[in-house]
C-alpha cells in the first residue's frame, strides 16, 4: 500500500529505484544490461564488505577513519608476501586478515583503554598505516600473483555470478545475524543508545568496543583482499579516500551519526546506491573530479537529513 508511512520507511529503496530508472534512460539501457549489473556487483563488493564493520562502529556512535589505510596496507602486505616472500596464497591472505584485525584492535586500545576520541585515534592510525604501506612497497606497484588469486575478485560462479559479490552477500548475512540474533548485536545498539546505562546494566563496554573495532579491521582487510584480487596489482594509494565512500554508504543507509539507530538492510541499499551512482557516472563519462563532488554532496545530504530529522522532532 503506497501510504506516507510506507514511503517514509522505504525511502532509501525508492531512491535506489529512481536512480536505476534515471541511469537506464540516460544510458539507453546500457546501465541495466546483464553485463553492467555484474560489473556493478563487482564494484560494490569491496565497499559493501568494508561497510559492515563501519556500520558496527557508527552504531556505537564512533567512527573508523583508518579503514582506507587498512585496505591499502592489506593490499601491499598480501602482495608482498605472495610475490617477494613467496608465501602460499592462502597463508598470505590469512596473515593479512590477522594483521587487519590487529590494526582494528590497536584502534580499540586507543579508543577504549586510552580514551582518545575515535575520530582522532583512527585518523592517527590512518596516517601511520598509510606510511607503513609506502615503506613496504617503496611507492611502486606489486604484481605477478598466482592466477588462483583471481578467486576473490575476478572469478565468477556459473560464469555469471561474481564470487566477490557472493562473498559480500555472505558478509552481509553474517553482519545481519550478529546485529539481530546475537547478544553482541543488542549490546551494539545499547551502547550507541546510552553508553553509561549500558555499562551500568552489566555490559562490558570496553570489551564490546574491542570486538567492534576488530570486526571493522577484519572486514576492511577482507575488502582489501577483494580489491587486490580485482586489480591484480597492489598500489600504495588504492585505499585513499575509500573510508569516505564507505561512511557515505553507511549513513545513506540510515545508520545515525548519533548512534544506536540503523540496520544492515539499509546499509545494503546505501551500498547499492553509491555503487550504482559511481557506475552510472562512469557510463555517462563524468570526470573523476566531478564524481568526487557528487559523492561529497551525497554524504552531506545524508548527514543533513539525519540532523534535520532530529531538529524536526525537537520542534
Amino acid at each position, binding site marked *: 500500500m503506497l501510504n506516507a508511512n510506507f514511503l517514509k*520507511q522505504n525511502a532509501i529503496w525508492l531512491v535506489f529505484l529512481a536512480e536505476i530508472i534515471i541511469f537506464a534512460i540516460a544510458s539507453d539501457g546500457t546501465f541495466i544490461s546483464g553485463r553492467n549489473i555484474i560489473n556493478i556487483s563487482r564494484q560494490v563488493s569491496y565497499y559493501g564488505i568494508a561497510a559492515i564493520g563501519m556500520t558496527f562502529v557508527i552504531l556505537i*556512535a*564512533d*567512527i573508523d577513519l583508518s579503514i582506507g589505510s587498512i585496505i591499502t596496507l592489506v593490499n601491499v602486505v598480501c602482495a608482498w608476501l605472495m610475490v617477494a616472500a613467496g608465501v602460499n596464497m592462502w597463508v598470505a591472505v590469512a596473515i593479512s586478515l590477522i594483521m587487519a584485525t590487529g590494526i582494528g584492535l590497536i584502534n580499540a586500545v586507543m579508543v577504549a583503554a586510552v580514551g582518545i*576520541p*575515535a*575520530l582522532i585515534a583512527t585518523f592517527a592510525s590512518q596516517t601511520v598505516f598509510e606510511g607503513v604501506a609506502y615503506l613496504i612497497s617503496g611507492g611502486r606497484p606489486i604484481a605477478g600473483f598466482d592466477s588462483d588469486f583471481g578467486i576473490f575478485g575476478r572469478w565468477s560462479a556459473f560464469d555469471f555470478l561474481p564470487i566477490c559479490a557472493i562473498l559480500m552477500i555472505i558478509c552481509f548475512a553474517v553482519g545481519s545475524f550478529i546485529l*539481530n540474533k546475537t547478544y553482541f548485536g*543488542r549490546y551494539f*545498539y*545499547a551502547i550507541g*543508545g*546510552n*553508553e*553509561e*546505562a*549500558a555499562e*551500568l*546494566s*552489566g*555490559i562490558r563496554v570496553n570489551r564490546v568496543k574491542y570486538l567492534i573495532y576488530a570486526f571493522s579491521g577484519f572486514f576492511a582487510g577482507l575488502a582489501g583482499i577483494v580489491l587486490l584480487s580485482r586489480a591484480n596489482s597492489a598500489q600504495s594509494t588504492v585505499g585513499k579516500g575509500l573510508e569516505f565512500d564507505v561512511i557515505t554508504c553507511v549513513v545513506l543507509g540510515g545508520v545515525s*551519526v*548519533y548512534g*544506536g*539507530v540503523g*540496520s544492515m*538492510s539499509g546499509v545494503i541499499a546505501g551500498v547499492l546506491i553509491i555503487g550504482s551512482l559511481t557506475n552510472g557516472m562512469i557510463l555517462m563519462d563524468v570526470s573523476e573530479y566531478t564524481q568526487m563532488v557528487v559523492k561529497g554532496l551525497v554524504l552531506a545530504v545524508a548527514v543533513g537529513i539525519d*540532523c534535520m530529522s*532530529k531538529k524536526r*522532532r*525537537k520542534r
Partner: protein
Amino acid sequence: MEHQIKEYFEELNPEKRKALLEEIDRDTPSFRRELYKKRFEFRRKPDRIADLWLFKCVYLPGLYRRKFLKKATLREVNLTIDEFFLREKLNDEQREELYLEMRNAVRRYLSTCRSAKYASSFFGLKKATDEEKFQRTTEDIWKMSRGIARVYGLEKELSLWCDACYAELIAYEPSCEKLFRELEEDFKK
C-alpha cells in the same frame, strides 16, 4: 520497617539495595527478593551484578525502531513482559512493589541521561545541550514504554511499565511532559 522499604525502593546502587534487603527480609522469602533476583542476577555468572531491567531500558528503544523482523521483535517484547513479571497473577501489595521496582529501574536509567556523552553527536565531538538531552530522554522513554506497546498492540500487558516510565520521567524533568504528549500526538497521526 516502612521507612526501610521506602529507602530500598529509592536506592539506585544494587549492592546497597541488597544490604537493605537483607535488613528488611532477614532471609525470609519475599516478592521483593524475587524481583531483586530477577533484575540483578547475571545468569551466566552469578557472582557478577548486572541489571537486566536497565538493559531493557536501553534496548527497547532499539526494538521500537526495527523495521524488519517484526515477528522476532514481538517475541522479544513478549519475553520482556515475562521478565517484568507482567503476566503473573499478583496481589495489590505485590503489584505495588513491582511498580516501585520498575520506577527504580527507570530512575537508574534517567540518572545516566545527564552525562556528557548522552545524546552527543558527530562521534562525540558535539555535546548535547540540556534541551537536546531532555528531548532525547523523552523520546527514549516514550519508545521504551508507550511506543513499543502501541506498535505491537501490547498496551494492556505493558500498562504498569508505561505508567512507571511516565511517572518517573515527569519526576525527573516536568518540562518533558509536553514533549511526551507531542510524541503521543505524532504517533496518532
